[in-house]
């Protein structure tokens, strides 16, 4: 016993602290992208060989832990040179207004806007604050997009053929007919990770854009139009119709996206609502999966379908970093054609650099083709109160499980909306 205690005591003493000096030649980057860490480290080695500047990629997972790390480190003023903000535009704005993020506008516009032009505008816009934005942020671009993404529907070619469907449905009626045909041969319809609320939110937003268009949605956010408006009821009713016709895979409302991806890869469902990042996952889980990408079937034929998309992941530069110039140089290098092509190939993501597009697999180009149809909450002039969105997403769940009617949910959402409006008018 004595011996053991001695050993443990020694261990404990050895543990003691040793602080390392920060040197000017090392750029520290904190990220959350577990799937890309290896590729990043390879690029870091390459960059050090080329320039002598050391890049230290630190990975924190899962992303919840990463978000906590960033929030706490901001308060302790120990943020690294480069990091990412995985949150709403409002929080991104708070980071900027509190002086944690460097304004990159000038850098992007240097040399006739060379850097800006090399990247997809849609991806850049996610990090852009426009003139007259509601967050009081100085207009400009504040982040560097590493990739481009969008979220649409995928269909399993084999399963559709089994049900006698030759082409993926383009309209909502066509989709319902496809579901009925699939049902006859015992195949599940649509799977998605709606246990993670934002994915259901995204689906609803797609149809809201299709049914009433951006202007009316923004007016709703401003409080000028009620959620009990017939157009919003239509949006909620889509979930009722889909649920009643058995379009959703069982358990969709509490499914984690990880498991939903597994379902689609294992051919347990004919359709999936998922982002372009899933191409990598499906490839690894089932290389033989034959599938294609399609826009969610339109409900209102007079308006095109809008989907969410933009930058998948962006990095920002710490405003108080003593290595800012070196850091900017590195991020420019990272988003240059060659490195972007490397990342696209290694991690099967859509590159944010236009010129790197040539190297991607065909399924990814199906995603790239519809980039013009994309929109995203981060580029809207107005955003809904998070509390209202929470109530709406939960309401959608209750519609799917048949607990509430679309009208009930609309009323409940409007109630929360009015409460929040009242609060914000009081100056908070």
């Amino acid at each position, binding site marked *: 016993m004595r011996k053991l205690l001695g050993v443990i005591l020694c261990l404990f003493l050895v543990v003691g602290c040793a602080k390392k000096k920060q040197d000017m030649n090392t750029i520290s980057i904190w990220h959350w992208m577990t799937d890309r860490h290896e590729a990043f480290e390879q690029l870091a080695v390459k960059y050090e060989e080329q320039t002598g500047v050391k890049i230290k990629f630190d990975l924190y997972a899962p992303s*919840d832990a990463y*978000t*906590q790390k960033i*929030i706490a480190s*901001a308060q302790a003023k120990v943020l690294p040179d480069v990091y990412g903000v995985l*949150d*709403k535009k*409002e*929080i991104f704005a*708070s*980071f900027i*207004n*509190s002086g*944690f993020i460097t304004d990159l506008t000038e850098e992007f516009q240097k040399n006739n806007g060379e850097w800006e032009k090399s990247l997809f505008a849609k991806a850049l816009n996610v990090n852009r604050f426009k003139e007259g934005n509601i967050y009081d942020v100085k207009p400009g671009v504040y982040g560097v997009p590493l990739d481009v993404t969008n979220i649409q529907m995928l269909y399993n070619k084999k399963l559709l053929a089994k049900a006698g469907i030759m082409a993926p449905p383009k309209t909502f009626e066509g989709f319902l007919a496809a579901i009925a045909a699939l049902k006859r041969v*015992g195949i*599940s319809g649509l799977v998605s*990770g709606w*246990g*993670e*609320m934002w994915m259901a939110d995204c689906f609803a937003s797609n149809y809201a854009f299709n049914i009433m268009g951006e202007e009316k949605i923004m007016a709703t956010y401003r409080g000028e139009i009620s959620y009990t408006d017939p157009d919003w009821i239509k949006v909620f009713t889509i979930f009722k119709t889909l649920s009643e016709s058995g379009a959703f*895979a*069982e*358990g*969709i*409302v*509490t*499914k*984690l996206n990880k*498991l939903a991806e597994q*379902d689609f890869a*294992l*051919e*347990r469902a004919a359709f999936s609502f998922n982002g372009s990042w899933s191409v990598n996952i499906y490839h690894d889980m089932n290389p033989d999966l034959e599938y294609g990408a399609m826009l969610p079937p339109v409900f209102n034929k007079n308006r095109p379908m809008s989907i969410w998309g933009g930058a998948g992941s962006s990095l920002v530069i710490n405003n108080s970093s003593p290595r800012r110039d070196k850091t900017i140089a590195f991020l420019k290098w990272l988003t240059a054609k060659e490195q972007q092509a490397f990342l696209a190939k290694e991690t099967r993501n859509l590159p944010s650099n236009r010129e790197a597009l040539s190297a991607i697999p065909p399924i990814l180009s199906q995603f790239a083709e519809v980039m013009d149809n994309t929109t995203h909450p981060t580029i809207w002039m107005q955003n809904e109160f*998070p*509390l209202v969105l*929470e109530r709406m997403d*939960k309401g959608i*769940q*209750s519609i799917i*499980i048949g*607990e509430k009617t679309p009208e009930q949910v609309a009323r409940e959402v409007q109630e929360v909306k009015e409460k929040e409006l009242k609060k914000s008018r009081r100056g*908070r």
Partner: protein
Amino acid sequence: MISNKRLTATKSNAQSFAFALPAIAIFSVFYIYPFFDIFRLSFHQWNGISSQKIFVGFENFSDLMQDGIWWKSMWNAGFITLVALTFQNCLAFALALACDREIRLKRFYRVLFFIPPVLSEIVVGLIWSWILYSGMQNGQHIGLFNHFLDKIGLHHLVNNWLSDPKTALPCIAIVHSWKGFGWGFIMLLAGLQTIDRQLYEAAKVDGAGWWSVLKNVTIPMMVPVILVVVILTVLGSMQAFVLILSMVGQGLVYHTDVPVTRILSAMTGTNRFGYACSMGVVFGLILVGVSLGFKMISDRTKQA
């Protein structure tokens, strides 16, 4: 002389205090300081990042009192706790009683019953969501439990376990109990082993049956241990949340929300940091109240 005596007493007090000093020191630095910070924040409106923290007085608390969803989440946690107190602890007690007797394979059982607490919540969530999976492929149920129900002819019982408001919370409560009963088992078993065997012999000589021995000898002797187990069960079950996140994600409407998941969603989902802090304070006060209640019951039983 008196002052000398007082001096000795002071010295002795100081010595005694030195015993508790390391604990108090660590605790003051790493708990008390964050505690007051959080307490202060609960009177503010803050999004977690902004340099502006707006003082709002008791507004967070008055909002919380009217927050129906918060009180529903409290009820849900209460339900999980109730299941844990009854189902989990009865099971633990029954198993401890069985293993207390001279039976074969005693050691084997003792080891196996402690496997669930050892596994991390992520593994447990992963495994159980696979067991409770609902959905079919090629006419076969994918989830193990539905598959089993189907095979033994109880086809009508096949269910959407985790997305049916009637079954989601009970399923979570049962998995939680399954994961937690090992702790109760080991503590209760330890308690049972302290009971003097002669008491059992004496009761048997008096002609007492199994039930009467349990009621008149075992349970009265076990009251203190049972109370410790009860309090730890309440604290553990009221604050459980990782399992919920790994089984149903952000939840089935509000049917699976518990106070801790509400706190998390207020903190990172809707960025109401101050509000989340006031939730923590209120939740803490309620737990303190519940524990005081149990302590009073225990004091009364001790007197009786």
